């Protein structure tokens, strides 16, 4: 059971990877036309319509999601650039916030019909329809009206300023001529077909076959409007949920590419002939949350100085080194809650002051009149510094991390008591505020949308009971700030404050692993949420 710990939105979010270490083998050879690549997917999409809550899964967007393009697309360096849109959309007015976009003349669906404004309107209506089980409506429900200027151009009026509008425009567009009048909740659950029964899509590869429980087959789109025609005939995604199985499968050549969660077993593949291993720091990051709510049962966690002391009792550098020595020796701890350390110009290491220091812990504890017990554990105001630290049971790396932190903190006089459970029991407890310290991951997108929910007072996802009016104001302001630079400044200002009263301590970005046969060329890691399948038209096999 190697699931991602969070469901990811199908919204092709902002992604970035400055560390694109590059996965292409020699470009000195000439690409050959034809062939099939077998890609092992670590999770099976529960259903294929990525917009729906039930189908919402990173692998849905990495497999069939690639066949439905959006007006914009997210590049590996986090920039969001026009894809089906003809040039950048223009901000016609700020009050009310109005955008105007134009669709490329040559953008067509695989059945020949052109991509039009109707498709955008259909997508918008599908997302906001309350009867549709859509996973995320954020942004779509801020649109007040869409007025077509002509079949390829429209004006979008928002009811309030929506800062991440480029992310919104990167959403996959659905074909209105194929789907109008159908039940969005069921029509595209296991196929993407138009009304004439043909497979349809707007990407370089379109969905041809889906064998539930086994594989998804995508074939070359003959009408692909992009600048480079795809070389491959087919890309077949086969489901392999067990990482050990994936590793043997690629060793033995039963699959050509794997993109697994970090597992210690992966280190075996480094020396294997005929395989290339690429690893980068992804945008999903592990962290520990301190629960300040009363029902958590640890009153000391309400005090910022105590949380700081706990943060100084953990050696994040050693933790990362120990866990990823063989897998990704370059990994360093994460020092910011909103931006990945590869996002140049945005990332600011506010948390880097929290280095392991028994002396600092002692200093803080003594300053607040804490006493050390005979077992070496501090007691403050009559409460022992004995805290329950839980994570998802069965996840080896997390369990190891927990044990390492336990040992480190013990040296500094703080006791962690393991409190782990299978994820199905763990997450409801966390969202109920029924924990003390929780170790899990947030799926970062590179865009700070959603931070106000996690860290703002009364935020829906603020299960730790953290409330700072200043931080809330800054984050809420960032949601409405259209200027990208100003927005980043607001977010970082909030982050700086949070580094002081540390509601959460970021640990590290989860590394990504792309392992592929050297005979597959031009495939490269994209550690952003876009995933490594964003350039399938460039892949070829020798």
């Amino acid at each position, binding site marked *: 059971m190697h699931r991602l710990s*969070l469901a990811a939105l199908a919204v092709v979010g902002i992604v970035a990877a400055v560390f694109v270490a590059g996965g292409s083998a020699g470009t000195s050879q000439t690409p050959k036309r034809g062939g*099939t690549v077998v890609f092992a997917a670590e999770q099976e999409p529960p259903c294929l319509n990525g917009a729906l809550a*039930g189908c*919402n899964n990173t692998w849905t967007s990495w497999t069939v999601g690639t066949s439905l393009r959006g007006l914009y697309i997210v590049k590996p360096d986090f920039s969001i650039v026009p894809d089906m849109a003809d040039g950048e959309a223009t901000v016609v007015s700020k009050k009310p916030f109005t955008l105007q976009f134009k669709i490329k003349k040559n953008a067509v669906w695989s059945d020949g019909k052109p991509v039009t404004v109707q498709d955008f309107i259909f997508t918008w209506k599908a997302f906001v329809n309350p009867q549709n*089980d859509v996973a995320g409506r954020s942004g779509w429900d801020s649109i007040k009206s869409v007025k077509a200027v002509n079949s390829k151009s429209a004006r979008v009026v928002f009811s309030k300023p929506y800062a991440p509008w480029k992310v919104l425009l990167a959403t996959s567009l659905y074909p209105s001529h194929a789907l109008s009048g159908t039940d969005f909740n*069921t029509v595209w659950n296991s196929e993407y077909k138009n009304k004439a029964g043909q497979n349809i899509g707007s990407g370089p590869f379109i969905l041809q076959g889906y064998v*539930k429980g086994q594989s998804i087959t995508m074939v070359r789109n003959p009408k692909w409007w992009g600048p480079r025609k795809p070389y491959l005939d087919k890309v077949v995604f086969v489901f392999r949920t067990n990482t050990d199985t994936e590793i043997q499968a690629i060793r*033995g050549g039963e699959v050509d590419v794997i993109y697994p969660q970090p597992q210690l077993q992966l280190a075996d593949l480094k020396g294997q002939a005929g395989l290339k291993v690429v690893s980068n720091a992804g945008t999903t990051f592990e962290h520990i949350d301190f629960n300040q709510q009363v029902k958590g049962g640890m009153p000391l966690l309400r005090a910022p100085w105590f949380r700081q002391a706990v943060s100084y009792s953990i050696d994040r550098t050693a933790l990362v080194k120990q866990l990823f020595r063989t897998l990704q020796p370059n990994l360093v701890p994460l020092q910011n809650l909103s931006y990945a350390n590869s996002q140049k110009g945005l990332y600011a290491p506010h948390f880097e002051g929290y280095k392991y220091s028994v002396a600092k812990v002692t200093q803080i504890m003594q300053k607040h009149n804490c006493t050390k017990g005979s077992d070496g554990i501090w007691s403050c105001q009559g409460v022992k510094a004995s805290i329950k630290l839980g994570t998802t049971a069965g996840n080896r790396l997390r369990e190891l991390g927990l044990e390492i932190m336990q040992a480190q903190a013990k040296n500094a006089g703080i006791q962690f008591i393991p409190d782990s459970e299978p994820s199905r029991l763990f997450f409801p407890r966390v969202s109920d505020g029924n924990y003390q310290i929780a170790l899990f991951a947030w799926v970062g997108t590179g865009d700070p949308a959603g931070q106000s929910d996690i860290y703002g007072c009364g935020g829906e996802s603020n299960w730790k009971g953290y409330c700072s009016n200043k931080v809330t104001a800054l984050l809420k302001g960032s949601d409405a700030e259209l200027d990208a630079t100003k927005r980043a400044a607001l977010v970082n200002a909030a982050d700086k404050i949070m580094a002081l009263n540390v509601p959460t301590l970021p640990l590290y970005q989860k590394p990504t692993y792309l392992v592929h046969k050297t005979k597959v060329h031009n495939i490269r890691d994209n550690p952003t949420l876009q995933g490594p399948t964003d350039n399938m038209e460039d892949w070829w096999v020798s």
Partner: protein
Amino acid sequence: MLTYILRRILYSIPVLIAASFLIFTAVTAVGDPLAELKLNPLASKQTIELVRERKHLDEPIPVQYVYWVQDALTNGFGTPLLVNEPIWDDLKRVIPHTLALVVSAELIALLFGVSIGVYSAIRQYSVADYAGTTLSFLGFAMPVFWLALMLQIAFTNLFLAWNVRIFYTSGLSSVDPGGGLHWLLDRAQHLAIPVMCLAVLQIAVYSRYMRASLLEVVHSDYVRTARAKGLSEGRVTMRHAVRNALIPVVTLSALSFGGLIGGAIITESIFQLDGMGNYFIENLLSQDVYPVMAWLMITATMIVLFNLIADILYGYLDPRVRYD
């Protein structure tokens, strides 16, 4: 006998109802099936509310149970929590995959287990007996997940060394298996290693019971009589002893057949064999109670049915046993 069968079937109904209510309560009582969805700060609250209402998640458990019974009887077990696809379609798909796996494993286990057991019994306390015992216990004592990984590594290394694909280490079929015989061969190559994993444990169990049963039969009066009559040892063994010694093994097998349809959870999950076991664990972990219940109804019925068959078989084969 007929009344006995009818009565057993009648009494099975409250068992199935009780099982369904117990497990329904167990799965819905703790946790929140929408928890993972809620984890995402950008998830639509509207959709979450919609699902809560449609699936009656806020009702007390007995009320939810009644809704489930309705759906199960009128709507082919209903649909999962979030995906709008009928559960029955999923079951139709996964059951054959499981049957192919577990029935093959069971038959192979019976074949090898019985043979090893017979040989061990005939040559009791010989080196062969001890070797057989030790080997079968080795198989018995190996955790299946570890054995699975070792076999996967072994066959992968074989492929790397000889460049010949003997068996596949995961999945149900290759990408383009072809038709007819090619498809069958491909499927067999994919199922071979998982079948080995499952059979190894069962061989140990069957060989032990066969050995014990045959040993005891071989010392019984009627076998002594047969020997005294002057029959050859082989005749004695095969015609009289083994046939009778098989009775407990056959009934044991009938009993375990009932449980087979539940699927082999770990094996199916490791080898990606889209079967009932995998279906069960995936839905249990995501707390999707309707698929779990559908799985339960099928497995519970099979278990109860095969218990009955085993009892009837035993009564039929062993004339000393009588049912009142």
